[in-house]
């Protein structure tokens, strides 16, 4: 086949996917698909193999690919074509507005080359075009690829369907929906002749891969899940979000096509962000709205007080940006005149208020307060602050809401500046304020104060003036948070429980209380109970009510509780719900990696992250991360001596967290213990004693475990005494270890190592089993030696190669691969050697090296390990 004339837009050099295979059907560049140059296909792996299978297999006659514009249909088709037999006769056709209105529009060029007019009636066209493809394909079956099938005339599609059904061609069709005219092709899908593939956007993991591939992981402030949601998983829109490229989407082309009155509706909706359906109906007919919704431009939320918004949030931004101020004002005037403004609530009120203010028309103070309150509840702090500021209104309640925005946005100094006079005012005239306001104000004060200094609180008296359970609940739950962060665990526990058990309080405050309760219980050793609280709090997010406060307060607790309890899987996913910062998720994952023995990985991530305090952090986790970094550095031999132990260098006292400072210190001391155990050991013991004093038995045990491993007698005593107070699987591990430390019993050591492995504490298991093996060898106990060796091997393997051996396989040479394959298939060294033209001795030598790397003793064990890895 000759390379096709690809036109000036796509020089052949930039043709990574092999469009040189294209036959010369199109002739004109308009019919060449707009290939995104060198864009990798992210996601859609299974879809890709389905398409390839459908084209090349015997079972199907082709594929129908459905998905929104920009979702990646063309990229998928291109990727599929590049995998196919190069001798296949491919004909590419592409629908367009112009082709659609002409009979057999997409075949125009094809037919004109044969000197045939397109003015063919149905039936006759079938004969002619069928003939044409027969001749073109020269015996092999042709593959016809149609892009943009929504913009193809009925007649052309009917011809293609007939040709496919008669098995003259194979067909790949990409369209935005199965609505007519594509129904003609959908018939083939329904009768099972072709497969249908739906592209509904790439998922978060693929989006993350895509974002990372363009090197944006750190600079982007929005989280991947947020970006994915904004772009509806549409790669093209995602790219635009990231680069601000102004490539128009299908939706925008569609908007350009609508009539004047629909355009006005769209612009109004985009400017307000969301309009109540009832209000919008006052400006246009229900049919118009239905049509715009059917076309995928608007979407109407289901449920009480349904609202209309733009289907694609990104597009809404563009539309907004394109409306000039004069037109915007005109639309606002018309909206003000026609709409019942009292019907605006929540999002719609916020959008309206923001829009009005931007044009210099300030709504009522009540409207501003409500709008800002809604924005704060949704975590849109900057916007909330913005509308309060620009409205020019002041007042205690507005100021408090403003402080909430500033706090949420991480501007604590500004928040404190706003709150201070409010607190003074309230202290001066304690009786003039309503209880709800006082409760909110006191809660805000708690958030802005150093949790270690309860005596500095000025609104302590507020608690006694409150009578409504909801106000008490709000304040008490926040106070519980304050106490928990200050390390007053018992007090936090009692307060949180009182709120949680009071159903008269609101679900929101009970949810927060439930989460605090969970963490407090886990810290104090009642792990099972604590985790059941955490599970309960998680479910309570499904009830109506929870807002941004609940997310910010509760979700970190989910992480902390699972982290302490060693539920790594849950701890990893806990922060996903919190979309405020991707950095935080990466950070927590690094902490988990460090605890589970992946020091190298943790070191790598922590090294990439900016470990300065970030305004978006809800608690000061940066100090903990710095300590974690130093530990990971020591563990990976990047640093041999610990420079300094981080003292409490505090950026912002109100962010202090007792737990975080405990963990930070534990990391520091573990790092120190690696290089100079003598000074570290007593300090580890004291850290445990300090936790024990606060009633945190679980944490105390974790510190004493480290000290005990280094042989600290008192720590071992403390561990033995306190481990009994910790339940759950962690408690079982602690008790086994305490027992092993306090006796000389070899078997106890092995039991502890086994428990550690079951629990997933591979580092600990490696250490315990290593010690056990040493002792077993010394005492000549063969059985114990073997058991210890196996435990050691299993934990070392996890540490070296991950649980599934992925890293192991990646590090194998070709020869080693062949040898391992031979071993798995049960061949002898001689047989393997014969195959590889090596002597049996050489094979044995390689095997010996492999045994040591995989920590096994013989080929039987090697086979078991590799088979296990292959399974997962």
């Amino acid at each position, binding site marked *: 086949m000759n390379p096709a004339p690809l036109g000036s837009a796509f020089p052949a050099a930039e043709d990574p996917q092999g469009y040189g295979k294209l036959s010369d059907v199109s002739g004109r560049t308009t019919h060449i698909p707009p290939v995104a140059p060198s864009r990798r296909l992210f996601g859609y792996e299974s879809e890709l193999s389905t398409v390839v299978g459908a084209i090349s297999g015997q079972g199907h006659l082709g594929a129908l690919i459905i998905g929104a514009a920009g979702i990646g249909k063309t990229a998928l088709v291109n990727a599929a074509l590049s995998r196919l037999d190069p001798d296949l006769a491919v004909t590419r056709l592409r629908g367009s507005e112009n082709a659609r209105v002409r009979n057999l529009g997409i075949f125009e060029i094809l037919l004109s080359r044969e000197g045939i007019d397109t003015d063919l009636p149905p039936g006759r066209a079938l004969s002619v075009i069928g*003939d044409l493809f027969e001749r073109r394909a020269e015996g092999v079956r042709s593959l016809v690829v149609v892009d943009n099938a929504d913009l193809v005339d009925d007649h052309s599609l009917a011809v293609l369907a*007939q040709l496919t059904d*008669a098995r003259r061609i194979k067909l790949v069709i990409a369209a935005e929906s*199965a609505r007519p005219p594509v129904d003609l092709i959908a018939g083939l899908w329904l*009768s099972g002749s072709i497969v249908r593939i739906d592209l509904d956007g790439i998922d978060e993991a693929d989006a993350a891969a895509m974002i990372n591939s363009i090197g944006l992981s750190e600079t982007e402030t929005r989280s991947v899940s947020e970006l994915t949601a904004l772009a509806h998983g549409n790669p093209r829109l995602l790219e635009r979000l990231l680069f601000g490229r102004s490539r128009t989407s299908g939706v925008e082309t569609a908007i350009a096509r609508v009539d004047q009155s629909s355009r006005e509706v769209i612009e109004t909706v985009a400017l307000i962000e969301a309009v109540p359906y009832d209000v919008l109906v006052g400006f246009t007919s229900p049919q118009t709205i239905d049509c715009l919704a059917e076309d995928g431009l608007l979407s109407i939320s289901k449920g009480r007080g349904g609202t209309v918004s733009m289907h694609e949030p990104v597009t809404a931004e563009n539309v907004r940006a394109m409306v000039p101020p004069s037109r915007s004002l005109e639309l606002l005037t018309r909206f003000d005149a026609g709409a019942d403004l009292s019907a605006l609530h929540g999002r719609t009120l916020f959008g309206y208020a923001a829009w009005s203010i931007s044009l210099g028309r300030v709504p009522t103070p009540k409207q501003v307060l409500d709008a800002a309150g809604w924005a704060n509840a949704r975590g849109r702090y900057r916007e909330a602050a913005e509308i309060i500021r620009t409205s020019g209104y002041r007042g205690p309640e507005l100021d408090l809401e403003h402080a909430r925005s500033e706090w949420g946005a991480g501007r604590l100094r500004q928040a404190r500046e706003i709150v201070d006079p409010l607190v003074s005012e309230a202290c001066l005239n304690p009786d003039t304020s309503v209880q709800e306001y006082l409760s909110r104000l006191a809660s805000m004060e708690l958030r802005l104060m150093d949790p270690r200094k309860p005596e500095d609180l000025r609104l302590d008296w507020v608690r006694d003036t409150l009578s409504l359970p909801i106000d008490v609940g709000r304040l008490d739950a926040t106070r519980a948070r304050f106490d928990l962060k200050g390390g007053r665990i018992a007090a936090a526990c009692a307060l949180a429980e009182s709120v*949680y058990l009071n159903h008269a309080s609101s679900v929101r405050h009970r949810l927060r209380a439930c989460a605090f309760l969970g963490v407090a219980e886990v810290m104090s050793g009642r792990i099972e109970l604590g985790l059941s609280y955490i599970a309960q709090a998680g479910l309570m997010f499904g009830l109506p009510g929870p807002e941004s406060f609940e997310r910010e307060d509760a979700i970190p607790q989910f992480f902390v509780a699972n982290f302490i309890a060693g539920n790594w899987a849950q701890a990893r996913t806990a922060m996903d719900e919190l979309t405020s910062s991707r950095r935080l998720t990466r950070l927590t994952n690094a902490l988990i990696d460090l605890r589970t023995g992946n020091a190298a990985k943790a070191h790598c991530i922590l090294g990439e992250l900016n470990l300065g305090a970030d305004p978006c952090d809800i608690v000061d986790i940066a100090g903990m991360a710095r300590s974690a970094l130093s530990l990971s550095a020591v563990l990976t031999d990047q640093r041999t001596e610990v420079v300094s132990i981080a003292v409490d260098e505090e950026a912002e006292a109100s962010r202090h967290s007792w737990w975080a400072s405990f963990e930070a210190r534990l990391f520091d001391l573990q790092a120190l213990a690696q290089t100079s155990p003598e000074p570290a050991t007593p300090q580890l013991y004291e850290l445990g004693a300090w936790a024990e004093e606060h009633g945190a038995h679980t944490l105390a045990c974790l510190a004493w475990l480290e000290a005990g491993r280094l042989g600290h007698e008192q720590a071992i005593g403390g561990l033995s005494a306190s481990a009994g107070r910790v339940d759950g699987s962690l408690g079982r591990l602690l008790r086994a270890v305490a027992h092993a430390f306090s006796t000389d019993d070899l078997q106890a050591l092995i039991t502890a190592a086994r428990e550690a492995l079951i629990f997933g504490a591979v580092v600990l298991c490696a250490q315990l089993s290593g010690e056990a093996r040493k002792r077993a060898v010394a005492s000549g106990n063969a059985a114990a030696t073997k058991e210890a060796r196996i435990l050691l091997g299993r934990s070392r393997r996890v540490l070296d190669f991950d649980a599934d051996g992925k890293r192991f396989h990646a590090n194998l040479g070709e020869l080693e691969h062949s040898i391992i394959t031979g071993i798995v298939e049960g061949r002898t060294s001689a047989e393997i050697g014969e195959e590889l033209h090596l002597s049996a001795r050489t094979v044995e030598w390689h095997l010996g090296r492999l045994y040591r790397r995989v920590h096994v003793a013989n080929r039987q064990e090697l086979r078991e390990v590799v088979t296990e890895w292959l399974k997962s």
Partner: protein
Amino acid sequence: MAEELTTSSGESIQDGTTIFGRKGELELIRQSLRCSECSGILIEGEIGVGKTLLARTAFEDGNDGIWIRGDRVHQNTEFGVFGLLIDLDGDPSTLLGRIVSRLTSTRTSQAVFVDDAHLLDSRSQEVLTDLASVGSIRLIAMSRSNPESGVMPFSTLVEDRVLQHLVLGPLPREDYRSMIEHRLGHIVSQAVVDIVDFHSKRNPGKLIELLEYTARRSRFLLRRGVWILDGHDTDYDARARDYARIGLADHSPQETEALELVVLAGEVELATLLEAGLGEAADALVAAGELKIDAQRPHIYEAVENHTSDTIRYTTPTGRSREWFDFIDSSGDAPAEWSQVVRAEWGLICGAEVGESRTIDAALIAARLGDWHRAMRLIAEIPTEKLSPHELLSVALLYCGCNKIPLGLDILAHAVRTACCAPLVVDALVVWMNRSSASMSPALRLADFRTALNRLHEEGDGHPGRGVDAAFGLEFLDRVAAVVAEERPITVDVFDGLTPESGATGSFHLLDTMLHATDMLDSGCALEALALLESAQADFSNESTGSLHLTMLQGRTLLQLGRIAEARELMTTLSTHDIAYLSARSGPIDLLWAQTHLLEGNLPGAMKALRAAIESLTYWNLGTQLAIALGEAEYAVSRVGTAADADELHARFDELPVTALYHEYRRALVLRTTARAIRTGETRYERELRRMLDEAEADGAAAIVVLIRLHLFLHFDEIAPEAMCEAAAHGTGREFVIVGRLGAALRDHDRAALTSLAEEYGASMPDLAGKCIALAARFGAGQSNGPGRQNIGLTAREKQISALIVAGRSNAEIALELGVRVRTVEGHTYRLFRKLGVERRDQVAEAMRDAEGRLRA
């Protein structure tokens, strides 16, 4: 059993497609290609039912068929679809002639396959009709059931019997299940079958689409080789919806409108439909089965629930939906309960004003009718602060039913703390006993009930005289607290000396009924238990998990009485298609199916159903029935499966919480003890069984006594005719009959009675039949000593392996020698040991010598 047939030709429509349950139909099509009395066949059926696939299969058998397909573009062109066969570009005057000669070119009449014949142009239809009626061609036409024109193509030929007529309907149920299992590759639980059945109307094309949807969205969960349904709310993607919408496009615009209106409203009066000008269209839909009319209320048109109606409710554009809603709301009819629910939800979806009380009422009705997700969607809008204690109780039950138990218990705690009357607290206590006595929810503890009851005791009841009072509640609470403290299962003892006041309804009454019924079953009073359950069933139209328990017990009792048909009826009746409800129901129904299969002697089927039941019951926290399911499974596996599987089931039983409500717990204990005894051959389990026998005799648990007697006879070779007769005299039911007849026959050495027993129960209890025949033979031979290992009946493989064992080989060596896996050898040796009655390898040689000696003697 399912019929399967693989398409004969390699080039089938789908790679490796297996056609399920259409063997007869395919044969009919093939016959019509040959038969002398007809010229072909008309295949009729809706989209996805398999018309094309069947015809394609027949088409590919032959080698000279012609395949054409109608479509909406070529429908308007004369002979349009023949464009690929002949050159339509040529001289138009010779066109017809060329077509006819192309179709009749061969000596034998050529087969012409016409797909989508309802979209064929009229001239082509004419020609094909003429040619077929004179027998010049064979015609195989496929058509939708209700073509737009209203006239079925080639219907005159069908009337004249020139063409045969084949209407493809839904697949038979068994084939359907096999097809799902074939596609998913594992056991499927009842919920999976139910939901696929409901949404696809057993249309194979739709089934495939639906399974692809569930795979895309991971709606089915694989638990230990069993597919169960997640039970989350319906959330169909665009593709699943397209399927339904394409089906809708078959209707005229009027019909579509009428269908939308009735589906959205749940039901519409004829007068209202006439007002909207849709009367005729609605009648057409009734004729097509898309709408229905209840014989009791002939003026009301009701919606039929299926995937399409679900789709309509979620995809009707808001504007149109709102207009319809206002129209129906102003019509002022008084809809039935179900429609009230549908309409309240409709209002919510389209954003119309629906009052809070109307929403709550609708949610409560929905919960009661078993439409849990609808209820949850409705109630989700309403903060719990606004609900009354009784409403809270209902919502709590709802959350528990949908497997959100911590949340349910939290709401239950709210209900208890604000309780206005004692019956509510007692009801809540029962729910708590069912759901949490083991897990100890942090939200709600036993003390909370006491606080609430004490409060009511002091302050007085909000609704005095309606059910039990606080004093009764406190006494009941003491009993429960004692049971919890002593860590024993909750049994009918909690009611000892407590006389619940009449008129008690709700969960408490349900508990009372269930515990008494279980006790009656244990005591052999199956008929009485059935009467009790039936009378209770009438009190609970309430479709909560509670009534699932009742249904389960009722079915179990019917099976015990041998009334299988009635039990089947109970199992196949479905009152709702809610996903959560179907999921929760799955375990209990699978368990019933298993017990039915056991009665019918279908041991593999029973094992599959038991595994499905165990996974569903575990996932859905229906621990009440888990004990008996595990017990039955362990007993069954001990007879047919591997020891490892049985041990695993045994371990799972051991993990069950001790303090809980269980159905047939004692029976489960007997089954697992016997199973263990069979497996290990250790005498201590047999002793354990005898201890249970003594205990049961002392308690008057006649059914347990009979069961143990039966096991002793079957598995421990005990022949105790007197004791068997005595045991059988104390109750009714299938096992009593068997043991009674056995006892009498053994006592009288009655060969004929034994033989007839063997014949009767040979299918369902082969081991019983074997025993009976062996004994009958011995009685005939005049032997009277205890039964020995007379006919050990080793298979060839077992003989081979026993020889190798005698030769001192290890299992691994045997495996190597025979070229099988070690596990397989272990299975063989396990069965071999059992047959020989030995426990160790070194005993095999002696046992074999003994057996041979006996055979020679």
